């Protein structure tokens, strides 16, 4: 059927639709077995250690540098208007609303998502998951669900740490290095950052990104063909799809949350 473009388009549309449907079905399947996984919290805490604690260093270093760059660039932009006191507000709002959740999610996809995909993919390639099924253990409940919830829990924690460290980075550059007035820096920040509208919405964003990124990573690993090539391809797909999902979700959530 070469040379029938209509059929080719139809195939692409059908493939896309069925993969979206399959992913949705898998997502609800994962949620369905989650209560069972919750009964063994030690599995989840082990995964939080693997996903969260090991990502801490890159999150803190990135947050610090993003905050420092924001402080520097914000100062350069604000000085012509004599508004460098607003630096604290600029740094904090940019971090808490957007950069904290989004950059953390992208780093998280690269740091933890890939390792989850590779791990699950190799487990599948080594037929460990099939072996579990043979022993009447549901691999989705035993392997996937604890990793999923660990990612969902770790992501907001990491995002919050990123924002807090970033604010400190902005403070270091803005106040200590450049010499913006310290009192104005903090008071402008406090006057314009709302706990509910900005801080908690940022945490909510991280939470949603945590669901999207972790689920993508697990899904790609679980449904990779058990070959070295496809496991490596699945790892790449995790980063690409998770990043695109983060951008898309971020746009929608920003439009919903900060539309005043």
């Amino acid at each position: 059927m070469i040379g029938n473009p209509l059929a080719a388009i139809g195939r692409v549309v059908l493939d896309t639709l069925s993969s979206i449907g399959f992913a949705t079905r898998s997502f609800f399947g994962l949620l369905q077995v989650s209560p069972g996984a919750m009964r063994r919290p030690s599995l989840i805490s082990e995964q939080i250690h693997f996903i969260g604690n090991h990502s801490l260093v890159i999150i803190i270093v990135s947050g610090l540098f993003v905050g420092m760059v924001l402080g520097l660039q914000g100062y350069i932009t604000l000085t012509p208007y004599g508004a460098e006191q607003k630096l604290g507000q600029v740094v904090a709002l940019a971090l808490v609303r957007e950069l904290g959740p989004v950059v953390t999610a992208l780093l998280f996809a690269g740091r933890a998502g890939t390792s989850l995909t590779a791990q699950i993919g190799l487990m599948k390639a080594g037929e460990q998951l099939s072996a579990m099924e043979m022993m009447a253990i549901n691999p989705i409940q035993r392997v996937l669900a604890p990793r999923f919830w660990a990612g969902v829990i770790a992501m907001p924690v990491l995002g919050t740490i990123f924002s807090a460290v970033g604010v400190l980075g902005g403070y270091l550059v803005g106040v200590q290095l450049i010499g913006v007035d310290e009192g104005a820096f903090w008071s402008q920040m406090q006057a314009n950052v709302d706990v509910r509208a900005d801080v908690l919405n940022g945490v909510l964003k991280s939470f949603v990104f945590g669901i999207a990124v972790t689920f993508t990573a697990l899904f790609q690993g679980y449904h990779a063909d058990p070959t070295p090539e496809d496991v490596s391809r699945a790892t790449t797909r995790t980063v690409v799809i998770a990043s695109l999902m983060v951008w898309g979700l971020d746009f929608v959530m920003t439009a919903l949350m900060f539309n005043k």
Partner: protein
Amino acid sequence: MHRKMIDVWVGLFVLLGLAALLFLALKAGNMSTLSFGKTYAITGKFDNIGGLKPQAPVKSAGVVVGRVGNIRFDDKQFQAVVTLEMDAGYKFPKDSSLQILTAGLLGEQYIGISPGGDTVNLAAGDRISRTSSATVLEDLINQFIYSKAADGKDASK
């Protein structure tokens, strides 16, 4: 033993997250300025509130003495009805007046309350009738242009 250590590290991780949240809420956010103290509500009617928003401060002599609660429109008198949540610790005379002011040239708008001389204080539910509206920049410019034009006419005579 190994199991315990992992729990300790995870606990530390979550604690670090909570500390970060607390830092953002208290140091970067307005949690410390949110007043959970007792307030009493009074209302004021304005012809034009300009860009006043809920949660804007109510200041007297520059000190925050309350916050703007909600803002409604009265379609009988075609005026804006602003509810003010005043800090219960501050009492003002009944004949105090309200003004909508702007912080700086382009800053946020807030309400200034100027105390009157009455011996009876405002109580919850009271309405302040002496109010002055926000200054709208266009009106100001119009006034300026008209007065300039009038000056020009006089000079040419």
